[in-house]
């Protein structure tokens, strides 16, 4: 090469240096600039779409949830369960709009009034308490189960395992599990938890796959399934997010330096002592993040709970009027509170949104319920997502040993 490149003197300013190779406006540079701008535009276009969706739902949903006067929040929307919205006029032309339960009360109080033009709009009245509670319960069951199995798996993968066939298989299985469509998990949950899972019961049902008598009692372990209930839904969801939880827990365990374990072992602690005393406590924030991440994923899923747990309409909240099933229950003897509680179907937010978006006739009276539910649901999920992102960043910054 002809041109010798010299190191620029440190004190020389840019103007005095004439680089013979440096040209300000070449075709290549112009092309580069254009492409950079295009790439930037593509990136911000994605963000603009997201912002548009978010703002649109916010604009239409916020008026349903917030009010201009004290307490500034539409309390009815959060304290009632979905019901039909009745719109009607009475003879003198005044117009009313109320939920079905309120309507029947009103009718009882005003038996004389003749009602004209009565319309019922299903699921458009009341609030979203039932679905919110149902989603919270499903998510809770799911997180407990998934965190238990996921953490144990992560501990095994990170602390105990050594290379081998079993490990390869395990990694492969986890990775494949992550790719299975959610509706297939729904089918699986229906097939396993709803129709085949074991219950302890005195009177096994005929459809049970097989029954095993339990010694010294009159009960049987009957493989007849839990039916459509929140337990089945929670377990199905847990199976679905297992890969996510495992990955997150493993990451949090990996972040803890080997020195902690080695020091502990060198002091004479057993393997388990060193894990439980000098690894797990420090991995705790990471696991918290994992569970919050799990909540965001699970709360929005509709397909797996459609056939395993969800119900479009339910009058009572899960803790009111628990059905006492004489014959089938999960672990305990007949008719106990806990088993009756978890063997109910529940309403769930995503399923409720599906119902109001696609399964009822659309008109202007259904809009507030639709946008209100979507708004609340999205804000809740987004808050959890933000929390998990925030915690993760903080945790990563803090956990530098």
């Amino acid at each position: 090469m002809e041109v010798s490149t010299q190191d620029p003197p440190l004190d020389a300013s840019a103007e005095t240096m004439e680089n013979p190779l440096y040209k300000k406006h070449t075709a290549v540079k112009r092309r580069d600039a254009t492409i950079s701008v295009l790439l930037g535009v593509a990136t911000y276009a994605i963000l603009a779409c997201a912002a548009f969706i978010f703002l649109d739902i916010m604009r239409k949903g916020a008026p349903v949830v917030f009010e201009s006067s004290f307490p500034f929040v539409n309390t009815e929307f959060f304290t009632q369960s979905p019901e039909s919205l009745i719109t009607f006029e009475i003879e003198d032309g005044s117009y009313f709009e109320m939920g079905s339960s309120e309507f029947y009360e009103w009718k009882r109080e005003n038996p004389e009034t003749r009602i004209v033009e009565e319309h019922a709009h299903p699921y458009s009245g009341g609030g979203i308490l039932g679905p919110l509670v149902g989603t919270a319960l499903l998510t809770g069951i799911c997180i407990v189960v998934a965190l238990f199995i996921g953490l144990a798996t992560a501990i095994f993968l990170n602390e105990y395992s050594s290379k081998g066939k079993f490990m390869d298989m395990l990694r492969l299985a986890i990775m494949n599990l992550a790719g299975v469509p959610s509706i297939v998990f729904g089918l699986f949950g229906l097939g396993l938890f709803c129709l085949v899972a074991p219950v302890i019961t005195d009177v096994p049902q005929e459809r049970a796959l097989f029954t095993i008598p339990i010694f010294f009692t009159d009960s049987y372990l009957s493989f007849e399934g839990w039916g459509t209930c929140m337990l089945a839904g929670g377990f199905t969801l847990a199976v679905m997010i297992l890969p996510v939880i495992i990955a997150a827990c493993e990451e949090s365990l990996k972040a803890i330096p080997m020195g902690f374990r080695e020091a502990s072992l060198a002091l004479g602690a057993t393997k388990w002592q060193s894990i439980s005393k000098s690894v797990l406590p420090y991995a705790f924030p990471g696991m918290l993040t994992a569970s919050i991440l799990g909540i965001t994923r699970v709360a929005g899923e509709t397909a797996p709970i459609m056939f395993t747990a969800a119900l479009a309409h339910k009058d009572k909240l899960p803790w009111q009027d628990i059905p006492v099933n004489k014959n089938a229950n999960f672990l305990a003897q007949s008719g106990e509170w806990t088993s009756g509680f978890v063997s109910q179907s529940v309403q769930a937010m995503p399923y409720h949104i599906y119902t109001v978006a696609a399964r009822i006739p659309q008109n202007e009276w259904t809009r507030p319920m639709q946008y209100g539910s979507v708004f609340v649901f999205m804000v809740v999920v987004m808050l959890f997502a933000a929390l998990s992102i925030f915690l993760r960043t903080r945790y990563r910054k803090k956990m530098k040993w």
Partner: protein
Amino acid sequence: MSHSGNPDSPSSPAKERLVFKRRGVQIFGLGWQDVIRIFFGGNASLAIIILILICFFLAKEAFLFFPDHHRDLNSYRQSGQEFVGFMGEEVTAHTNLYSSANIAYFAEVNRTSRVEDTILRSYRSVLANVENRSSKTWGRLEREIDALEEVEDDLSDLDPETEEDVAEIASLTEEKRRLEKEIPPLREKLKREVNTILSWDEIWDLGVGAEEPPADSIPGIREAVLFEAFPDAEEEHPFIEKTKQISKEKKAAAAAELAEFKETIKGMQAVVRPLKDLERELKEPALENKKEITSFSTAPERRDAWLKGAEATRDPEEKARMLARAEEVVIKEPDYAAINQVFYDAITRHASIAAPLEVEMKTLFDKLPTPAGVVTKSAKENLKRAGVFYDRFQESMASNRKKIREWSHDHPVTVVESVSAFLVGKNWTTNSSWHDFYGLLPLFTGSLLISIIALTVSVPFSIAAAIYVNQLSSFREQSFIKPAIEFIGAIPSVVLGFFGILVFGEALRNISQVEWLQWFPGFPMAERLTILNAGLLLAFMAVPTIFTLTEDALNNVPQAFTENSLAMGATKLQTVFRVVVPTAVSGVIAAVLLGFGRIIGETMVVLLVAGNKIKIPDFTEGLGVVTQPAHTMTGIIAQELGEVDSGSLHWRALFMVGMVLFVISLLVNFAAQRVLKKFQKI
């Protein structure tokens, strides 16, 4: 829980004897530490067990599906329904041809009265808007007028001479007076309301892209709407009447010009009638046969049910009755040859109908105008499609004639036929009174089309964003964009589907009507919920997956590569596109594959937005096929599984669809992992 731990682990503590080591309690040679290890190992192996269980539960139903389906297909053949189905195919092929010619004809005729039709359409839309806005007053006025009429009717029925009626007459007259007093102010009020409403701009909003009526017709429309505000007006406003009249005349003139076209279409309709009649005639015996065969095949089951019931009851009388019912169940195999004789007899009749039909259709088709011979875009397109449909009609006639000639009811359905009836079957029909078909093709095509659109849109955007964020943006931009895109991944899919139904679908349809976008295939769209709508939403959904994985892959490219390239004098972008991206290409491919897996497995968006029409999209429209509604594999499971009996053929078919989805997801995952492994070798 399985206890498949790892017994040969080299870190087994029992191997080394330390001087100060406590032995502790041991059971079967396993110490406390081993138990803990096995516990964790057992939990870990749950992942494998779950995967195996998924396979098992899907496979169980799926493998039970094929024998059932095979039996079902056999009965379809033995009942002669298959024979009638062949004719049905011919009729359908003809109908496709006929209807596209018909659409072309009407597009041509209506072209001349376009202005008048626009005026009438705008009038109707404005009137509907106004009625909607003033519905309270309007409805009340209508009710009062009705009430008044009723009162007058009642009054005329009553006899003032008789004593009983006198009191009633008094009350009715009172009522009448009240109503008569109330109606005029109401009427005034309505008129005022309508007048105000008419001055609002949004009333005149006919939707984006809808054709505006000519400016000089707007006063007329306004007049006519005001005129309608008198609900008792029997006739329509003269302006509307006149417009209708003109429209009618223009259409008539156009029709006169196109008389030959019309004759051809009428001829087409007439010439197929004998075939249609024959098909309808044969459907009845086929259904009879089906009933007989079903009753034969379920007879043992029914008898067993009665016997079982009899065994269970304690009441002797009831028991006797049940046993009698069990006796009554006849298990008699139908005489297949005899019940199918009617179809064999029809073979010659069909031949005598089909031959002239083909000849006549040829002459009729040749008489149709060519696409160049018509004016409107719709007519041109539809005539083009008619050409395709004519070829298909000929094919269908030829192949079905052969099938009909060679048809035999006792020819057993082969395994290949039965499996391909599912995998490449063109119909998915359930709860039908004729016969239920379980063919995967319509669902698979829908899923595939949606995925293709989603990927074509999503991949460029996500990869561009990944390159931008990873290589070009500042640190501050990065720390804002990355979480933001992660946020997109957290949007629940049902929320996106909801957005697609209520906002995006309508917006897309409006955009499709904009004048300068008409070059896009399939625009303007008639439907709101289409493949395109679902595809675009899924593209948005897939962005976080593809973006994150691509970004990771770019991140993993060793820093030295970039530095070397820059040191050689390459510009930043040259480095990115010639060094970084090619190095990371397998990671990018894996990202795209996993994105595909995410898209094809997505349920709620497609269930809500794809339109749920179970039919193979009509590819004669070319690329415009994307503006049609479709159904998907995931959607069908979500939609139908809740409503079928467990263990039925339909239920098993749905599990089989799930199995196909599962296999696709495994294959995609496998491919992605293979690609990634290659990448790691660098």
